[in-house]
């Protein structure tokens, strides 16, 4: 990678990241994320009433559902806004490859989530104060949670490359994230299997492997499984690749 490539990516990243800080989006989303991520364990999971101090079942378990709604809210402006303002014409006639722009933007949105997730540190501090938790599952839980956020974000990124409307992008991305989360749910899989003919059962089971959920739970258990990390990384690579194709076909 040439120095120039890196500089271009950094320039796009910087612009995009500052744009988050200059708009209310970042503050609203981070605050809502913190309210949800910190509130749910206390009010619904009753974290204080339990005997043990593990976070997996009470804290991380909520994250996929929070990301399903909030990650598209962060990512929806990435390309839709460029299409709407017409600035995509400026950006793509500058000496920058589409990949540099895609990565710069994606990392900027990823940083927003890094900030959000870092600010949940008081809950770790709380369980450390109350007991003596095993740090392994907490660390791998955070990694799983962040990877899940990035996967939702990359899906949103691909959708936003297609539409110029942020609202459409948001709704479609949320729908995608819900579907990808639910296909691995044992209840859902069971229902579908019982309605389809027997030869299709294998197909349903195969599709359910692609759910984010199984891989997420495996990781939060504290066993750092390389396979699951690789799964999330490949989801991100594939969706960013789709983003590139979508941008290319938009200006074909």
């Amino acid at each position: 990678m040439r120095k120039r490539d890196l500089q271009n990516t950094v320039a796009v990243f910087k612009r995009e990241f500052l744009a988050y800080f200059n708009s209310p989006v970042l503050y609203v989303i981070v605050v809502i994320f913190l309210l949800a991520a910190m509130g749910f364990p206390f009010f619904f999971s009753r974290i204080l009433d339990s005997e043990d101090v593990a976070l997996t079942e009470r804290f991380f378990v909520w994250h996929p559902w929070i990301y399903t709604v909030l990650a598209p809210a962060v990512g929806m402006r990435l390309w839709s806004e460029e299409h709407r303002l017409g600035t995509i014409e400026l950006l793509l006639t500058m000496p920058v490859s589409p990949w540099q722009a895609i990565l710069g933007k994606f990392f900027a949105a990823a940083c927003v989530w890094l900030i959000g997730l870092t600010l949940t540190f008081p809950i770790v501090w709380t369980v450390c104060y109350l007991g003596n938790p095993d740090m392994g599952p907490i660390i791998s839980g955070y990694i799983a949670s962040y990877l899940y956020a990035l996967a939702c974000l990359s899906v949103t990124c691909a959708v936003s490359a297609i539409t110029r409307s942020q609202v459409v992008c948001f709704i479609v991305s949320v729908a995608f994230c819900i579907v990808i989360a639910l296909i691995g749910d044992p209840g859902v899989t069971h229902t579908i299997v019982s309605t389809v003919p027997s030869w299709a059962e294998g197909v349903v089971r195969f599709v359910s492997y692609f759910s984010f959920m199984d891989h997420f739970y495996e990781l939060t258990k504290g066993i750092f499984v390389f396979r699951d990390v690789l799964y999330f990384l490949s989801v991100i690579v594939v969706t960013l690749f789709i983003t590139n194709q979508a941008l290319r076909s938009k200006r074909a």
Partner: protein
Amino acid sequence: MIQVKNLIKVFGTKVAVDDISFSVEKGEVLGFLGPNGAGKSTTMRMVTGYFRPSSGSISLCGIDMLENPEDAKQRLGYLPENAPLYSDMTVASFLGFCAEMRGLHGADRTKAIDRVLDMCFLDNVRNQSVDTLSKGYRHRTCFAQSIIHDPDVLILDEPTDGLDPNQKHEVRGMIKRMGQNKAIIFSTHILEEVEAACSRAIIIDRGKVVADGTPDKLKKLVPGANSLDEVFRSITKSETALKKAA
């Protein structure tokens, strides 16, 4: 410096640009004329590397746009139609971003920003947010962006659209001055502008070049025509006239 050969662009079944070839040398200002929807913007978008042509070749300063887009784009400044800007930035930070994208960093970046702020009379709005600017300022900010790296090739899509008469005069003067050591293409609907700023003009109608020459030569194309206006109207028949004839 700009070489365009047999450019064709097809959208679905519609042929937007139909076999256009032209070249622009250093020191030339080429005016792009034509009725709305004639294919001016589409041609410019292909020359700037935004659209991929269906067939044909484009080279800027000898660099092929299709084979080596990043190097070719480095030689190019582009002002898109309607002057799009990132609305969440200030004028100076927007220009700073554009300078970085062009590979200008540190002191070079600061110098480039100051130079274009001065050239485009933007000094008094340098820290103002882009979305609070009036149309004239927005246009000039986007124009400043296109010349921030002092490119050899400049492509301007309706650079005087929406400006007041004073600003139009300034922009025309700027184009003419810069045209002395650059290759410039600009599109316009205003025919006096062509006579004021261009050394050559091309008239495009329904995707084809219908006339190419100096403004004076174009005037002689149609016998008895006194102005470019009349020439323009007689060679590019309007849609309604075509319907009447049919």
